[in-house]
């Protein structure tokens, strides 16, 4: 690489239930993002005019989140008027795509300093609000055999033989790890409390985690996609998976990612920019990749994406200390570990979005802060971040401490 893309900081909001009774529902999405920009500015006494561009992922960029929310957030944060902003959408990969886009611009020399991140207020702009042909157009659905993502998650579980107990046990562990990490203060470095304009704290720490979950409670939940599957979506998916007799519907709200509100921001720049502003790099982006796999099963992309990322970086699985795979559904994470031959001990070590929630456009950027903190805490070197993405895509980013 010509220039290296350094990570100077990575922060995030806490996450809360993405419904009307969630703590963050009262906060406008533009303010969720702007709050983090203000925090970044004050933490580093940042001359914001030096930031070339702010790129934010957002999956439902309509309504409160419409009209290029990244530029809106820049203005709401009263950053210098020289700072531009762009919103992008790569479904659940948006937050990490924003990071990778920023890194690529730094590497290419197009920009010297950028903020990448994401925002999603799922309580205000519900999932699916932006419509789209891929999952709502009869022609496309029939032609592509496009099924809801949960059907794909259940199909992965069926093919790999994950039982309901297996996925519930995975979910339990996610809750346990997340609660332990939060309660041990391991998230405190990056999690920025959300405050109102008078400075009162609205939400200090993640409040979506359910540490008192047990297997019995998880086992009592009804499968989320069985009814949908019976309409014909199962048949559609299986028309492409002829060796599967029927789909075992194992996923429930308990072992799938939670619907939450949240935002994330990562400060990325060249070595020179850091020197000019007196910033100390916490890490760097080593490599980033995209893949696309079968859009019907949809969620099998992360493993191949991580493999491609390692290959391009000239590294192997053993060169990576920690792995982070977005827990869209338990089976996605389990398939990822299986694909890469890695152990749960070094994967999602502080839990994941089953416990903490998945604010769609922000999650990918949140993973950067989670992993940087943990690499530092363990004094380890590299982490791979991956997410499954609609349409069969997969995204992976390899970071390392410097």
């Amino acid at each position, binding site marked *: 690489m010509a220039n290296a893309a350094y990570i100077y900081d990575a922060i995030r909001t806490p996450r809360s239930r993405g419904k009307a009774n969630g703590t963050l529902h009262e906060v406008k999405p533009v303010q969720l993002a702007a709050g983090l920009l203000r925090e970044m500015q004050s933490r580093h006494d940042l001359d914001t005019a030096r930031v070339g561009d702010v790129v934010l992922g957002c999956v439902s960029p309509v309504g409160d989140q419409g009209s290029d929310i990244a530029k809106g957030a820049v203005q709401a944060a009263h950053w210098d008027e020289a700072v531009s902003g762009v919103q992008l959408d790569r479904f659940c990969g948006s937050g990490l795509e924003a990071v990778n886009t920023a890194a690529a611009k730094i590497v290419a020399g197009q920009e010297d300093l950028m903020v990448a991140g994401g925002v999603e207020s799922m309580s205000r702009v519900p999932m699916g609000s932006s419509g789209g042909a891929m999952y709502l157009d009869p*022609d496309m*659905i*029939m032609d592509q055999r496009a099924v*809801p993502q949960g059907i794909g998650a259940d199909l992965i579980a069926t093919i790999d033989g994950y039982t309901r107990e297996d996925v519930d046990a995975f979910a339990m562990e996610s809750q346990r790890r997340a609660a332990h990490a939060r309660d041990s203060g391991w998230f405190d470095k990056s999690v920025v409390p959300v405050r109102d304009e008078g400075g009162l704290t609205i939400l200090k720490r993640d409040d979506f985690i359910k540490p008192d979950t047990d297997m019995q409670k998880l086992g009592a939940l009804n499968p989320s996609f069985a009814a949908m599957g019976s309409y*014909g979506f199962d*048949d559609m998916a299986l028309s492409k998976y002829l060796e599967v*007799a029927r789909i075992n519907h194992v996923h429930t709200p308990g072992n799938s990612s939670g619907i939450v509100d949240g935002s994330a921001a990562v400060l990325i720049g060249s070595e020179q920019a850091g020197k000019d502003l007196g910033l100390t790099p916490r890490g760097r982006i080593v490599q980033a990749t995209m893949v696309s796999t079968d859009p019907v099963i949809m969620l099998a992309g992360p493993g191949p994406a991580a493999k491609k990322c390692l290959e391009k970086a000239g590294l192997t699985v053993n060169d990576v200390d920690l792995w982070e795979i977005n827990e869209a559904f338990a089976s996605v994470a389990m398939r990822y570990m299986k694909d890469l031959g890695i152990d749960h001990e070094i994967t999602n070590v502080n839990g994941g979005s089953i416990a903490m929630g998945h604010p769609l456009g922000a999650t990918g950027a949140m993973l950067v802060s989670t992993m940087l903190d943990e690499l530092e805490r363990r004094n380890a070197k590299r982490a791979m971040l991956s997410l499954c993405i609609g349409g069969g895509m997969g995204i992976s980013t390899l970071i390392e401490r410097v």
Partner: protein
Amino acid sequence: MAFAYEKDANGIVSVTMDMDGPVNAMNDAFLPQFLEAVDRIEAEEDLKGVIWTSAKETFFAGGDLNMLKSITPDGVEALFESVEGTKAVMRRLEKLPVPIVAAINGAALGGGYEICLACNYRIASENPKTKIGLPEVTLGLLPGGGGTVRLTWLLGLEAAMPFLLEGRQVSPSKALATGLVHEVVAPDQLLERAREYILSVQGNETAAVQPWDTKGYKIPGGPSNSPKNAPRIAGATAMLFKKTKGLMPAPTRILDIMTEAAGRIDFDTAQRYESRRFASLTPLAPTKNMIETLFFGMNKVNGGASRPKDIPRSKVQRLGILGAGMMGQGITYSAAMAGIPVVLKDTTLTAAERGKAYTEKLLTKRVEKGRMTTEQRDAVLALITPTNKAEDIKGCDLIIEAVFEKIDVKNAVLSEHEELLAEGGFWGSNTSTLPITRLAEKSAKPANFVGLHFFSPVDKMPLLEIIAGDETSDETLARAFDFARQIKKTPIIVGDKTGFYTSRTIGTKMLEAAQLVAEGQDPLRVDNLSRLTGMPTGMLSLLDEVQLKLVDDIYNTQVQMGLQDPADEATPEARKLVHDLITEHDRLGRATGKGFYEYTADGKAIWSGLAAWRKEGSDLPDQDIQDRIMFRAILETLRCLEEGVLRSVADGNVGSILGIGAPVHTGGYIQFVNTYGLDSFVSRCDELAKLYGDRFAPPEILKNHAADQIAFR
């Protein structure tokens, strides 16, 4: 004859459609007349309203299917222009500043109802024969005369779905309840009421404005992009997949046009979009196939194309049924429903009564669903006399024997009861495999002996395969045919060769699936792929359902009787596999929970023991597996046509769809070849023969048709 145009003293114009031919239809003659009428109305002064009605028994019959089925890809543009031309006139009609009333005197289906939708007000007469609806989808078409868009606007996405996606047709009263018409009146008051209505809304401007031209009109149930409707549309698509396996383009296009029309694009753009998708749908193979077989073929078959000519129509007055088992019960039901008195005999009265109870059960269900009154049910039940006494059968003009499939059992029943037939009566043997000529050898009057192959469950399956023995007279065949029509079955008449038409052909595709398993293919994949051709069930599942044991027994019996020579067996490995499953692994079929599948309370799973036959790494392409199964059935059907087992192409197409699960979108096992392309089909056969054996070699009849480039009609 044309449209009668009349203006009364009140300033109301009546247009009475009376086109040449038995019905009004949207053919070449329609547009000029329609245009002329609308031109004239537009030029009227002091116009108060328009009544649109028909001089025929029906209101309007719909599109010209002969024209539509002949459209080639080159003709799409002209079709599009012509549809747009007609629709422009409809648009002018509904935009007139006076109320336009459709006076629906009889059936208004398809294009007929689309004209009604272009009127402001719809009054139907209480004519019991009147059906209203848009059945285009059942023929692989879509309502392209504005109906898809207008009905979506009128009823909303959800309420319009059954009419547009399933082609639901309703009576006038149901049409009123569902909002298809505004009023239902007695037939003799229809025109008077239409006039009265027009006069009653004078001065009310909204009465002359269509909902879609009304400012602020909201489609009931909201637009397609609403959070409630968006997932519903996706779900509806999934349901269509479940039904069509993605093989029929029409229903998906209809749903798509509805989705676009409901708020994504404006009314006029949606109309153009509908025309476009209608025009490009028309030349596709599934559309052509469905029109050819489900309309023309069905009319030919039911119209008696294979019925011996010049024999007067007859009716069965009293029916005797011997054997109150599953088949006897079902035949009893169908006959009683058609108003025929039935004597149902079994060896014990209890068994016979149990047979009658089957009809009672089905009828009670109808009563519960409000589809029948208790009086009607009791009247039907009163037609059935259960008995164990032979003399009660005396005087029946048709006796159907539905006893166990063994020649000596059938012979015994024949000798005991044949003399009880009324003078000139005829005898029907219900069998799926036993040779009729041989059964008739024991008959005193073999000319009056005919094979009647009913399908199970009889009350649901619409086909009757009539088998002509060597001695069966034309008169008997004609009477059997008439009986089939009397009980509302669709009859095909076939020759008495082993397995007749249906059993013989269904056997080939099931055994080809078994052959694939015997060769080492993954059984689940074979079963799934066969189902994905559009057959109602996978071929291995079907083998399980008909019982492996039965398939094996029938074959062995036929070999013993000299009807089959094992040396000629096309798929000996399949025969051996089925035989081994039964004899060595106790897998008799679904009834015992053990076949190719293992059946448990949790559902079914491929029996693990089949792994012994599996050859990993030998997987054939999907297309080859599907073609092997489909082509076997098609080639067998062509051989039946060649050998005269089938009397007509239409019998083969209709029989294959109604009786043995030929995929509907293919138009049946002969029509498939026409749209596949004769030459392409022959060369694919040659390819399959080279790869998989001589059973795929094209028969002479196919080669001849291909050489002469004559489609099978």
